[in-house]
C-alpha cells in the first residue's frame, strides 16, 4: 500500500515515457516484419496510388486485421503494426485515468475519461 500512498506526478511521467517508447518500438517491429514479407511476396508488382479506391473491409477493422494477421497476410501484419501504433496513445490516456485516480484527482479523472471515450469512439465506431 505504501507505493500507492505516495503516488506522484513524477512517477506518472516516468511510466508514461516508458509506455510510449515500448508502444512505438513494438509497432515498428511488427510493421518491419510485415514489410519484409510484403516486399518478398509483392516486390515485383506495380505500385499505383494515383486513384483512390479505399482499403478492403478486412483492413479497416480490428477483427479483420487480426484475422488477416493469423492467416499470415503481409498487408494484414503491417496493418496490425499500424493498429498497435494508434493504440499507444490510447493506452497512455487509459493509464492516466488510473494515475489521476491514485492521486485522488477527481476532476482530472473526468477530463481523462472524456478524452478516452473520444478515442474509443473514433477507433471502434458508434
Amino acid at each position, binding site marked *: 500500500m505504501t507505493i500507492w500512498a505516495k503516488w506522484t506526478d513524477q512517477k506518472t511521467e516516468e511510466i508514461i515515457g516508458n509506455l510510449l517508447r515500448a508502444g512505438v518500438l513494438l509497432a515498428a517491429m511488427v510493421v518491419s516484419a510485415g514489410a519484409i514479407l510484403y516486399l518478398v511476396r509483392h516486390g515485383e508488382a506495380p505500385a499505383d496510388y494515383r486513384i483512390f479506391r479505399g482499403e*478492403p473491409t478486412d483492413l479497416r477493422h480490428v477483427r479483420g486485421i487480426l484475422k488477416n494477421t493469423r492467416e499470415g497476410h503481409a498487408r494484414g501484419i503491417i496493418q496490425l503494426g499500424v493498429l498497435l*501504433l494508434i493504440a499507444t496513445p*490510447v493506452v497512455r490516456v487509459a493509464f492516466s485515468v488510473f494515475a489521476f485516480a491514485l492521486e485522488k484527482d477527481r476532476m*482530472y479523472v473526468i477530463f481523462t475519461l472524456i478524452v478516452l471515450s473520444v478515442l474509443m469512439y473514433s*477507433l471502434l465506431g458508434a
Partner: protein
Amino acid sequence: MSVLVFTLLVAAGSLVAGFLGALTGLGGGVVLVPLLAILFKVDIRYAIGASLVAVIATSSGAAAAYVKEGFTNIRVGMFLEIATTLGALCGAFLATRIPAPALAIVFGLVLLYSAYLSSRTRPLPPANEEPDPLATRLKLNGSFPTPNGVRHYFVRRVPAGFGLMFGAGTLSGLLGIGSGAVKVLAMDQAMRIPFKVSTTTSNFMIGVTAAASAGVYLRRGYIDPGLAMPVMLGVLAGSLLGTRVLVKAQTRSLRLVFAVVIAILGVEMIYKGLSGKI
C-alpha cells in the same frame, strides 16, 4: 514503378522529411503529404492517412524522451486534449466530405502559414506574476527545472487557448498533420506558457490528437499498409537521427531553407488544387 522501388524511394523521402523536421523543430508531417501527392502522385487521401500514422510515431517517440525531463505539463496536456481530440474527430469527418482539390488548397494555405511562422522570430511573452483564477481551479499552473532551480509559471487565458486547440485538432484531422505550429501558438501566445514547456507539451498532445482522427481514417479505408509502412519507418528513423544531431547543428539557416521549401510546396499545392490536377 514496382512496389520494391516505390517503397524504397518513399522510405528515403520520408527519412529526409523526418530528419529535417526534427532538426528544425517544424515536424516532418507538414512536408509528407505534399511530397507524396506531388512527387509520388499518390492520391491526397492515402497521403493524409499515411502521414497521420507517421505523426503518431514521431510524436510518441519524442514525447517519451521529453516527459522524463520534466518540462511537459501533463495536466495542461490532458485538459487541452479534450479540445484537440474533439477537433480531430470533427476534422476527420470533414475530410470525407471535402473534395480532394479543396483539401489541397487548404493544405497549401496551412503550409504558407507554417513557413511564415517559422521564418519570423517570436517575441518573448512578458513574465506574468499573478495567477489566473480559472487556470488555478483547473490546476494548470506548473513548474520546470532550470540551471538556477525550479521556475514556476502561471497559465492565462484558458478559454482562448482551448478554442485555438479545437482549431488545431480540426486541422490535424483534416490534413493529417501534427499542427504543432498552431498548438505552440495557442500555448505560448494565448496561454503564456514558457516556450520549452509549450513545445514539449504540444508534442505530448500530438500523438493523442492524431490517434483520434487515425481511427476514423482506418475505418474509412484511407490507411493503406503498403504506403503507411515506408512512410512510418522512414520518418521514425529520420527523426531519431535528427534529434541525435540536433545538439551540435547550427539550425537557424537550415530552418530558413526548410521554410522556403515549405512555402514552395504550399504554392504548388494551391496551384494543383485550383487547376484540379490532384
